């Protein structure tokens, strides 16, 4: 690469400099106008507008989907429908998978024992690592395999820009970019993907706001937790016929709380550390397109489901091993799990949770997906052979044995929604912002909010009850 300034190149630059001085300030506008005029002239010569063949339904549909009255109800309805399909559809396959995995666990650990393997080897491999994997797959795979394709259909149809159109004024009001509705929607799939999607926002200030608040929409790794809690604690309070709707409704409620926090935190950021006005932009409402089924299945199953599941598996195997070890190693008459969760318990209780849940959140920093499996494994301990292959048994464990209440469930849902992003998202935030300062803020701020909110909820409820 030639780096020396050749005399001729400086001659060009000098000439440009002097010519520029002689030019009108409107030079740039002039060029842009020329481009637009040329484009118009060329398009006019080659384009003929005839009678649209069945075009009007687009416009009519857009009027409804983006209407002031129907826009939001339809949006919530679509979201609720996606969750409902996921909850109803995932229940049965989840149980089947769990049952199958536990049959294998019984068989394999029995085989190990009969072959004379030491108890700790059998325990570590089958009741630790394997059980962690089994839980993650049976808890996560069915909801993801249903949620991702359904969500991708909405995406391919062209619904997301309409969502952005509907929510634009909200984001503008809090001083953020209207396209944040798009990046927020992408966060439903995976917050790391949502953070990358923030590149569609040009203004650095608004892009930072979008990156820092993306975590407030629950990602797919957190949905199984929310769905499980909604099913066990909320749906149980309703007659069976309404249970699934109640569960879907409460997940939508959690998402709305997430959107609320997205807006409040965006507002707070744009009033304090990221001051500025919302910039305007043009949002194209792309035509509705017939989703390509093969493409949707490929994108949602291979790119999304298996990708996320693989990541969860990579994290779950060591996490399962760690929890088993913590439970198996006895120090002074109590297991390490007992010591650590006992130490964390006062803090956990003060925010409506308990020590085991906090321990699970620490273990689950690499991937939120493994929170529930970790909690269950920590509760069950190393020696216990309880098989949890249905939600009813899970309910028995959590409510009857561990004393969970509706308050625990609500606080856990809020904590799951608001707490710090997973390590992948934190790493992505660092790569996208290139700043440790913003990454730290984006990680610590949600955690602080989660603690404050759960603390407030727990103490308010306890005060009145």
């Amino acid at each position: 690469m030639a780096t020396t300034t050749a005399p001729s190149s400086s001659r060009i630059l000098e000439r440009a400099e002097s010519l520029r001085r002689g030019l009108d300030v409107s030079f740039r506008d002039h060029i842009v106008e020329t481009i637009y005029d040329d484009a118009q002239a060329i398009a006019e010569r080659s384009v003929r507008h005839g009678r649209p063949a069945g075009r009007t339904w687009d416009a009519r549909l857009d009027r409804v989907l983006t209407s002031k009255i129907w826009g939001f109800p339809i949006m919530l309805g679509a979201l609720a429908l996606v969750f409902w399909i996921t909850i109803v559809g995932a229940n049965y396959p989840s149980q089947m998978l769990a049952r199958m995995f536990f049959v294998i666990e019984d068989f394999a650990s029995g085989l190990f024992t009969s072959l004379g393997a030491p108890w700790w080897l059998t325990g570590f491999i089958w009741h630790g690592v394997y059980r962690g994997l089994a839980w993650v797959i049976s808890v996560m795979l069915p909801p993801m395999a249903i949620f991702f394709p359904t969500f991708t259909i909405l995406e391919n149809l062209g619904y997301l820009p309409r969502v952005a159109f509907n929510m634009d004024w909200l984001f503008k009001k809090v001083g953020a970019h209207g396209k944040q509705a798009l990046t927020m929607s992408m966060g439903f799939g995976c917050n790391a993907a949502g953070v990358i999607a923030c590149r569609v926002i040009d203004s650095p200030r608004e892009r930072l706001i979008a990156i820092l608040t993306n975590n407030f929409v629950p990602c797919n790794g957190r949905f199984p937790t929310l769905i499980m809690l909604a099913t066990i604690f909320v749906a149980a309070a309703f007659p069976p016929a309404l249970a699934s709707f109640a569960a879907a409704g409460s997940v939508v409620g959690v998402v709305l709380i997430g959107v609320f926090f997205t807006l409040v935190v965006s507002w707070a950021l744009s009033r304090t550390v990221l001051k500025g006005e919302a910039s305007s932009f043009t949002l194209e409402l792309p035509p509705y397109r017939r989703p390509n089924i093969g493409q949707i299945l490929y994108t949602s199953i291979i790119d999304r489901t298996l990708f996320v599941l693989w990541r969860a598996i990579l994290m779950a195997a060591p996490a399962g091993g760690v929890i088993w070890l913590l439970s198996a190693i006895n120090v002074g008459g109590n297991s390490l799990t007992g010591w650590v969760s006992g130490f964390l318990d006062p803090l956990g209780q003060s925010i409506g949770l308990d020590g085991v849940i906090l321990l699970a959140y620490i273990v689950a920093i690499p991937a939120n997906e493994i929170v529930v499996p970790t909690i269950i494994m920590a509760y069950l301990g190393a020696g216990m052979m309880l098989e949890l292959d249905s939600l009813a048994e899970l309910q028995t464990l959590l409510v009857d044995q561990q004393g969970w209440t509706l308050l625990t469930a609500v606080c856990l849902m809020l904590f799951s929604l608001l707490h710090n992003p997973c390590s992948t998202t934190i790493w992505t935030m660092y790569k996208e912002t290139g700043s440790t300062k913003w990454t730290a803020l984006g990680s610590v701020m949600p955690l602080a909010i989660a603690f404050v909110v759960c603390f407030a909820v727990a103490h308010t409820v306890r005060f009145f009850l």
Partner: protein
Amino acid sequence: MTTKRPRSIRRLPVVEPDAPVPAAHRSLGIDTSDFDYLVALAGNPNTGKSTVFNDLTGLRQHVGNWPGKTVARAEGGFAYEGKKYKLVDLPGTYSLLSASTDEEIARDFILFGQPDCTVIVVDATVLERNLNLALQILAITDRAVLCLNLMDEAQRKGIRVNHKTLAKDLGVPVVPTVARTSHGMPELVQAIAGIASGAIETQPHRIRAGGPTARSVEELAELIAEEYPGLPNARWVAMRLLEGDRRVERAIQEGEFSDLVAEQHEPAVAGHH
């Protein structure tokens, strides 16, 4: 549905997405080794660029119906008539004039990446708006093909585009396509090959400023053309310099343009005076 549909819709051969494409091109997936030609894929957001990319390379780059979805540069390969092509999917932009990251990536690639052909994907239903970007690209490179995509939607909306008139006005090949159904893709590949090998000569439409501005632009362009003979976009460089474009100024200072000219003449020895 309406009872009478225009006959022309029926004439569109509908190819099922997964059926074997009648094209002579062969998708190479992510294999871009030892390519003979470099092809850039540019266009406005949401024009089906990624669909064109997937069709040519056989890859499954995520296709989403929302603007700005392709955030990272995707690369893939295909082969046609014994030559290997490396295809680079650039981020979708509305123009190349402002300083957003996406526009810079797209512009720098077309300017300094020296693609042997740039495919400009446009949405046939909103041609005028899409032509703004197309004209800016044609100001930079003369090795380009216009892919007139979403022809099915244009027909549905009663919009008819005369691609021959358009090709004459733009001075580059124009290929009508429906990328989702692979319609027109063989013709597109053929046009790409023609441009890349030099078999098809182009006379791209160039933006010309009028009045006193024109004289300054022409004067500077002449100086630039003198310094870098063979540079295909002297007038565009002049306009950018007059506007005070720092990136282009730096390119002049650091001799990047001389490198480009040198590369064009001797592909083997890159970057030396």
